[in-house]
């Protein structure tokens, strides 16, 4: 069976709301409008205005209210129309949500999910295209998930809602309409994925490629092209950016000895940098080639179609980087 990511998210919300009366959804246009991207379609009708709340366009205010409700024991799902707008509320996500359990020595727990589309969409310009994965995932106290497929979307969103800690859940607008095959297990209402575990989307032996969200699809496409050139790429879908599945990534690199990291966000202090550091720390001696980093260009997102294309990673960038890593079997000859 095929399922769209939109449907996967919608069904996950629906099932968790149905299973636990403490779960409620709030955000801009989530109710009567059925969601700016229709993720919450039908939920207002099913659960009523007490549990599906349209908010004014005041992110700081409603996010604070969500976090306060979580302090009390409810399980809010706060939708940001896009994560760009979460910057208006970021103090509550970091200072009010992520740190409260620690500051109170465990008295206050904050079972809340912040979700919405993250990163680049198409043609929406510099203010609406930022990826917040590396920022949020730098913060202890938060868990940060980024689904790729419908299986991810369902399993991770259900896990996020059931989790007792604050979870930042980074969706991707361009994936909402994509369909993926789903098993019966995935469709079962008890289905749930573990937080903190990456998924090997494709096994390979020559080079490891890590990616999350939309870039997983690109990495898989790159793997197919590489396969034609006789390069067997292992694709890791990170799924969880915090906790980062360091063991899985290191195990793969120890096998392949080569690593390409892929992300859409800005490169500096990005997810790729962290993965590179983790490999150097844990598996230095296993690397046969420098880690290759593919990331968004280090510029604000331009609008023009040709520039925009250059500003985000393309399949050919991944292919090229993987080949660079593979055609070099030994560390660069150095001054030694």
């Amino acid at each position, binding site marked *: 069976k095929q399922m769209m990511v939109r449907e996967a998210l919608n069904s996950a919300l629906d099932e968790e709301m149905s299973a636990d009366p403490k779960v409620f959804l709030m955000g*801009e*246009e989530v109710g*009567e*409008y059925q969601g*700016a991207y229709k993720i919450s379609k039908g939920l207002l009708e099913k659960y009523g205005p007490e549990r599906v709340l*349209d908010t*004014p*366009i*005041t992110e*700081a*205010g409603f996010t604070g209210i969500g976090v306060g409700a979580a302090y009390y024991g409810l399980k809010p799902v706060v939708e940001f129309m896009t994560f*760009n*707008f979460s910057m*208006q509320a970021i103090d509550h996500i970091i200072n009010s949500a992520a740190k409260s359990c620690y500051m109170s020595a465990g008295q206050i727990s904050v079972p809340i999910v912040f979700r919405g589309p993250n990163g680049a*969409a*198409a*043609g*929406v*310009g*510099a*203010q*609406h295209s930022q990826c917040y994965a590396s920022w949020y995932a730098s913060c202890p106290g938060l868990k940060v998930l980024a689904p790729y497929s419908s299986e991810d979307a369902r399993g991770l969103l259900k896990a996020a809602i059931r989790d007792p800690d604050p979870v930042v859940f980074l969706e991707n607008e361009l994936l909402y309409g994509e369909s993926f095959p789903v098993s019966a297990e995935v469709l079962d209402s008890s289905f749930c994925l573990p937080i903190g575990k990456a998924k090997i989307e494709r096994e390979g032996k020559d080079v490891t490629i890590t990616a999350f969200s939309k870039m997983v699809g690109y990495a898989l496409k790159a793997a197919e092209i590489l396969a034609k050139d006789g390069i067997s790429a292992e694709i890791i879908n990170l799924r969880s950016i915090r906790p980062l599945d360091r063991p899985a990534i290191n195990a793969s690199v120890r096998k392949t000895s080569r690593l390409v990291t892929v992300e859409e966000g800005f*490169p500096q202090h990005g997810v790729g940098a962290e993965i590179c550091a983790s490999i150097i720390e844990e598996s230095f001696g296993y690397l046969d080639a420098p880690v*290759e*980093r*593919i*990331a*968004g*260009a*280090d*510029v*604000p997102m*331009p*609008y*023009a*179609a*040709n*520039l925009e294309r*250059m*500003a*985000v*990673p*393309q399949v050919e*960038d991944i292919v*090229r*980087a993987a080949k*660079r890593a593979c055609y070099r079997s030994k560390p660069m000859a150095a001054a030694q």
Partner: protein
Amino acid sequence: TSTDPLTIETSLPFTSHNCEPPSRSVETNPQELISFFRDMATMRRMEIAADSLYKAKLIRGFCHLYDGQEAVAVGMEAGITKKDCIITSYRDHCTFVGRGGTLLEVFSELMGRQGGCSKGKGGSMHFYKKDAGFYGGHGIVGAQVPLGCGLAFAQKYSKDETVTFALYGDGAANQGQLFEALNISALWDLPVILVCENNHYGMGTAEWRAAKSPAYYKRGDYVPGLKVDGMDALAVKQACKFAKEHVLRKGPIILEMDTYRYHGHSMSDPGSTYRTRDEISGVRQERDPIERIRKVILAHDLATERELKDFEKEIRKEVDQAIAQAKESPMPEPSELFTNVYVKGLGTEAFGADRKEVRAVLP
């Protein structure tokens, strides 16, 4: 057409909060009225054309159209000068044109071409015309209000005796940063006019569902306010003149412009699920800003129906020509990816998606 003075009554009274409203008798002249008609008709046509270009996939991403609200952009310009500043939201095409921006710049920007006002790098939401005091084009709801107060701060600091109009929607009116900036502006007596373009919906949310008190002209509490018929360019002009004088002497004021957007919020919104078709057609029939000026012009015999129709034909042609020209404008050079990141790039390297393949030294 002449510039002989002419006085016309606004069809609705102003409603004021903590201030004396201006007179309903607006001074104008035939030339101004004709230019109102021409400018609004141009804006209307331009937005309709943008709609078609979007549907033809020549415009991408978000595209927020202004048709219905033209009287605000046009009336405001009539009350102020280009030394005054304007800053607005993403719904910025017509505000840009009001400041003197060209159709060619508009369409080129919308299609992401070199000829655009932001050379194709900004897109629909990020138009600017700094030489005429237009500071954008902002995508984050509410953000332009403190920014506008900052422009006013700079005007006062520079002793320029000019003012800033910061435009925002009814949805934005609930944003906390607006209250923060208003308090500071009042403390510092900044010459800033907060213009709430109340088109009664923030996306799909009716004003009363987003605001406990949708009387936006009163929301400044201790700051004076004025409610204005935003479908009447003359009322808008009168209010903006009044407001400019007010803020130069007494600090900030709020103008609530009662207006309407005919289109949906952006191109993905049909605009018909959260309001009735009757509501929309009622506004079109009874309050349309272009039709209102047409009536005034005809009533005062300033032009014939025929002449006005001819104007509209001309405009249609102008718009079509601008589109044709814009289509000829090339896409930006790839090297533009790395320009304007900084004014002073310090010669450091910036990276493309694959840094081993694409890198540039920032100028």
